[in-house]
């Protein structure tokens, strides 16, 4: 194999690895902007039932860019049967993401009967 072919193969391997979709830490969280999805990574999701039996979650991630961003998340809370719970707490909520830093946000379920959730994250005001 010539040196040129080796370089091309190496380049292809590196490019493919870089573009591969990283495995989401929690399937319930989706970054809906493709470009943004390569720039931020969700690293941890903590789900607890608090002392009043409300489900509480904390999502942590990392901003891998050199820029401060303001992002928005929206949570849909679900009953055990998968039905969505209508609530004013399901709204686009802004949160700050500082350059090269970890970020996190917390949320609480609107009812004790909420057993699951879905979160979508996007750039501010798309």
């Amino acid at each position, binding site marked *: 194999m010539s040196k040129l072919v080796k370089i091309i193969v190496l380049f292809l391997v590196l490019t493919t690895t870089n573009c591969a979709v990283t495995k989401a830490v929690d399937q319930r969280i989706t970054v809906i902007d493709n470009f943004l999805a390569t720039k931020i990574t969700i690293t941890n999701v903590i789900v607890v039932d*608090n*002392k*009043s*039996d*409300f489900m*509480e979650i904390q999502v942590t991630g990392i901003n891998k860019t050199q820029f401060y961003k303001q992002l928005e998340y929206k949570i849909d809370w679900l009953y055990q049967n998968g039905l969505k719970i*209508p*609530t*004013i*707490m399901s*709204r*686009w*909520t802004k949160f700050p993401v500082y350059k090269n830093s970890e970020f996190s946000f*917390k*949320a*609480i*379920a*609107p*009812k*004790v*009967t909420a057993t699951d959730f879905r979160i979508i994250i996007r750039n501010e*005001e*798309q």
Partner: protein
Amino acid sequence: MTLTSFKKNPFLLCHQTKLFRLTGIVLLLFLVNGCATSARNIDMNNDIAPAVLGIDYRDFQKAASEAVSSLLQSGAVSKPTGGRYVLAISRIVNDTTQRIDTDQLIKKIRVALLRSGKVVVTTAVGIDGAEDKLAMQVRTLRKSDEFNQATVAKKGQMVAPELSLSGKIIQRNVRVDSSTQQVEYYFQLSLTDINTGLAFWEGETVIGKRGSNNSVSW
């Protein structure tokens, strides 16, 4: 139609002028109508319109949502013995330059708290009298022979409130420079245990806006 015909008949000239004016007015009306922005519904789930200096529905949604999240997280509305707290709405002061119906904020909080299953709001007691006066009024039917007395509300059935929600919306205008102003809104709420008079929970949401001095926030 020549100039000589106008000279011969001045009435014809007058008539022509009127006709020109009328055509001009009609054209102007068409132009104005054509340039007017047509009304359209707001997509409340994804409103990307620029912010306004005054308080709009997005600010009420933010303040109410943050207040409810904070209330539920604090555990202040979770009764240690189980069941639901009875909440009365006290005075919510509007200390802004805008004419605000504070129910725009409070109703959202009430609905969310009721749906949480932890709180029920009384409409029989309020700072300016009962919100729903009918609950007391139907009790006057106790003496009426026209009503089946078994269906009339009995004495001692109403439930007194255990908690009271009060608050204030404050506005502060700050001059940034000759062309820019900053308007700050503070949504402050307190949840008081009526029995002890102690505030079980307090919360504040601050919303800041910057805009042209030419804009008015009222």
